[in-house]
């Protein structure tokens, strides 16, 4: 057990239990020791510093260094009381192709609860929330039970483990909308408002939920924190195979032999994930490309398969590590129709606040539908290129939802150009109709 936990801090317990890890199993495997150690023996700054040293980066898609984010939260001066602050877990997981947080929440809810309580302690939050996707019913039941147990064991509540630190923990179940996952929109949703992104600055660590200092972290990010505190930053740094620290939940969906989810060292090469873990392509299907980290990341193709799944390496190839759950496109899938499917999602989920996103994304969807259905014209692709470029520039829209929408489209236009051209030339979809 301890050996596996040393190399797979997120999932070794789940594997040993064969699924759901209850409180007893979690504690037997050393659970809540990190919390005890932190609240009774470390200052909040020391916790922040350890996480910073470990170079833990956000697993929600943007990869921002977690310890650094925490260090932006204003702390009370020595001897002064802390005001109201919030530690918030982003468990909205609506990025198409992403199925990692659900697995962690359903199978090891105490790991997330402990990670969130540690984040709360590090910034001296008085309240912790999990913002959970509304459709995740099993995760909701398990989290509510885990929170109740954490309270009854005094891991949460007043005077945690006799340390003098107090924190409440609660669950918010989302009303459902992709934009809720954007951290400032999430704050509005948590406050019971429409989930529209907020202007920045101020950033959440300065002014977040109800105008108070807040940090928002992804489920998987927080699940890394207990082991970092128990085993130390150096151990965590060594877990990665390349430049980045730690392990990552990597997933593969699409026409592969064994779609699934695995905790592997950061920097594991794409090919190894696809072949050794996902079993390669299903018989009769050829690999065309993949979205490495969810729907809002740029396509990668054959020439990229030997790249390590590292933040920098994937960025250098023009894409993003994103959520680390890859979507494989095989040769039976029409890249134009797939692009239409993606733009349909992004158009539908636009919050409607700014024009290039509200008007531009449905326009892209319509043009793609026209091309797919044989109504494409010469010049359409140049127009798509141009508009994609305009909508995709981060400053042109209020949040990066639109930027994310353009990533898979601009890269599809680049790598699968011939498919787009064939649709226009032949005035039909060469892949045939009706999937």
């Amino acid at each position, binding site marked *: 057990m301890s050996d596996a936990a040393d190399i797979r801090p997120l999932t070794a317990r789940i594997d040993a239990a064969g699924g759901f890890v209850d409180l007893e199993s979690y504690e037997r495997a050393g659970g809540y020791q990190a919390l005890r150690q932190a609240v009774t023996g470390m200052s909040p700054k020391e916790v922040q510093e350890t996480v910073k040293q470990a170079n833990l980066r956000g697993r929600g898609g943007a990869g921002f260094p977690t310890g650094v984010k925490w260090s932006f939260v204003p702390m009370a001066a020595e001897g002064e009381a802390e005001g*109201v602050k919030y530690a918030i877990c982003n468990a909205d997981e609506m990025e198409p192709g992403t199925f990692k947080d659900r697995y962690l929440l359903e199978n090891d809810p105490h790991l997330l609860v402990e990670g969130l309580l540690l984040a709360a302690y590090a910034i001296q939050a008085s309240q912790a929330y999990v913002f959970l996707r509304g459709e995740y019913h099993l995760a909701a039941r398990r989290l509510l039970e885990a929170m109740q147990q954490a309270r009854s064991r005094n891991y949460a509540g007043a005077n945690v483990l006799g340390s003098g630190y107090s924190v409440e923990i609660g669950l918010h179940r989302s009303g459902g909308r*992709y934009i809720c996952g954007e951290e400032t929109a999430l704050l509005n949703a948590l406050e019971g408002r429409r*989930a529209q992104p907020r202007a920045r600055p101020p950033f959440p660590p300065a002014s977040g939920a109800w105008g108070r200092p807040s940090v928002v972290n992804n489920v998987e990010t927080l699940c890394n924190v207990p082991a970092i505190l128990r085993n130390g930053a150096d151990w965590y740094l060594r877990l990665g195979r390349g430049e980045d620290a730690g392990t990552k939940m990597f997933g593969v969906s699409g026409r592969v032999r064994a779609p699934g989810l695995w905790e592997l060292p950061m920097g594991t090469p794409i090919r190894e994930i696809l072949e050794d873990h996902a079993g390669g392509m299903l018989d009769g299907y050829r690999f065309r490309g993949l979205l490495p980290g969810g729907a809002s990341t740029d396509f990668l193709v054959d020439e990229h398969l030997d790249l390590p799944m590292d933040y920098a390496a994937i960025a250098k190839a023009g894409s993003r590590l994103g959520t680390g759950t890859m979507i494989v496109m095989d040769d039976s899938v029409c890249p134009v129709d797939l692009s239409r499917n993606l733009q349909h999602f992004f158009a539908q989920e636009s919050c409607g606040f700014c024009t290039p996103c509200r008007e531009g994304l449905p326009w892209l969807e319509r043009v793609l539908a026209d091309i797919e259905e044989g109504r494409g014209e010469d010049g359409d692709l140049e127009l798509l290129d141009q508009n994609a470029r305009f909508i995709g520039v981060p400053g042109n829209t209020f949040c990066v939802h639109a930027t994310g929408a353009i990533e898979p489209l601009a890269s599809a236009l680049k790598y699968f150009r011939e498919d787009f051209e064939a649709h226009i030339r032949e005035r039909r979809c060469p892949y045939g109709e009706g999937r």
Partner: protein
Amino acid sequence: MHEQLINPLSQEEIDAIEAEAAHLPERRSAAIEALRIVQEKRGWVSDESLAAIARQLDMSPDALDAIATFYNLIFRKPVGRHVIMVCDSVSCYILGCDRVKRALEARLGIGAGETTADGRFTLLPIVCLGACDRAPALMIGDRLYGNVNADDLGEVLDGHE
């Protein structure tokens, strides 16, 4: 539906809403929870329920409706006893969710967004359900189904009366 005209919120619903509002900095922050609480028992949020919830949270019905209509999981129209949500996002698209959707439409005799005449099922599209390794996926009520076979829907539909 008539019962709601006479008695917009039950004591149980009021208690549950108050319990949520109690630990929030502003009463109105409980809006989404309150809508969920009421929808849980009634299946959807009628105008009468909406007005009653708004009163309970000291806000205007219009303000609450702007919130209710923003979110996908709050239903402002009646739905069937079971809501079928078929994932139409990218991994499920690759693995044939359109066939699943067409098969369901044919079998139930309704299109997306509609409810069967017997009030048994409502069919809705939904974005990625976080079950992409088991695509195509759908949910009925609280239950998730993966690796759905468009040619054998009995397996998922049976048992939902």
